């Protein structure tokens, strides 16, 4: 592995460790609902602060189940990842093309001169 690839792998491992450690250490154990979303907790806090508050507008479309919702979240991540992969693919192709041209050019130059 090149030095660059090693550093990139290390970065990914660090991110993975940061995500897994709270689970492995059981940091959600004391909670009513371990590892609930912060957004949902904020909603609960609002109802605690203002028990009489009623949301005055509801979403136009709501995923019918948690499964459909997670599917849509996966779709969002996949769309993003797909575009990123396309970007790096195109750049790699261009670099390889340029390198191939550069490699071919010196050999062709004498031929055109003769």
């Amino acid at each position: 592995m090149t030095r660059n690839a090693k550093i990139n792998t290390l970065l990914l491992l660090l991110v993975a460790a940061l995500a897994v450690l709270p689970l492995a250490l059981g940091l959600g154990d004391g909670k009513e609902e371990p590892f609930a979303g912060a957004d949902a907790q904020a909603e609960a806090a609002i109802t605690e602060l203002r028990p009489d508050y009623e949301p005055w507008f509801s979403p136009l479309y709501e995923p019918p189940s948690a499964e459909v919702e997670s599917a849509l979240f996966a779709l969002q991540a996949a769309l993003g990842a797909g575009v990123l992969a396309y970007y790096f693919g195109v750049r790699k192709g261009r670099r390889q093309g340029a390198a191939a041209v550069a490699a071919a050019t010196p050999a062709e130059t004498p031929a055109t001169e003769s």
Partner: protein
Amino acid sequence: MHIAEGFLPPLHAVAWGAASAPFVVHGVRALTREVKANPESTLLLGASGAFTFVLSALKIPSVTGSCSHPTGTGLGAILFRPPIMAVLGTITLLFQALLLAHGGLTTLGANVFSMAVAGPWAGYAVYRLLRKFDLPLMVAVFFGAFFADLVTYCVTSVQLALAFPDAATGFTGALVKFAEIFALTQIPLAVSEGLLTVLVMRLLMQSSKSDLIRLGVAKLTGSEKQREAAV
């Protein structure tokens, strides 16, 4: 950091909408100008928006025993400046509000302000400041992304505390409550976002250095300058 649909009183919703709108309009102009002047930017613009798409879909466990998600706005702010990120962030928030019932249309103004305006500007400011002090590019990128992420969640806490002050302790009491939910949870996630942004910036340095030089993010190294001069 998404404030759920209907969870801001109408007056607040309108005020945050009015506060965000000029940034988004200005951003749309900046975006069309950039695409016209540098059509080759389009691909990297798409990639920056895609980065926000991926990161804001990842709900990651945190030390507080709850889950939250990064924002992915630091990268675009550093590459294309914050006005353009305001547009890319708004697109992401609209997608989530319309299809996922995550966030909402009435709270869109507030969510745009925290994630697509305040976060990117804060991250960009930190990035520029560190670069001014000649810190290495990747250090500046890390802290830029870190603060873009964290400031977003701090702003959300302020927004909610303004709308729902505590009966006894007022704004401050409510701010502490919301900051405990959002900001504390977000610290390790902001570190993750910083690391991921550094990773993508490293890949960009390898694959698209010419773009980064044109955008003023990277500079030619000594040996590259010599090679350019030789050509």
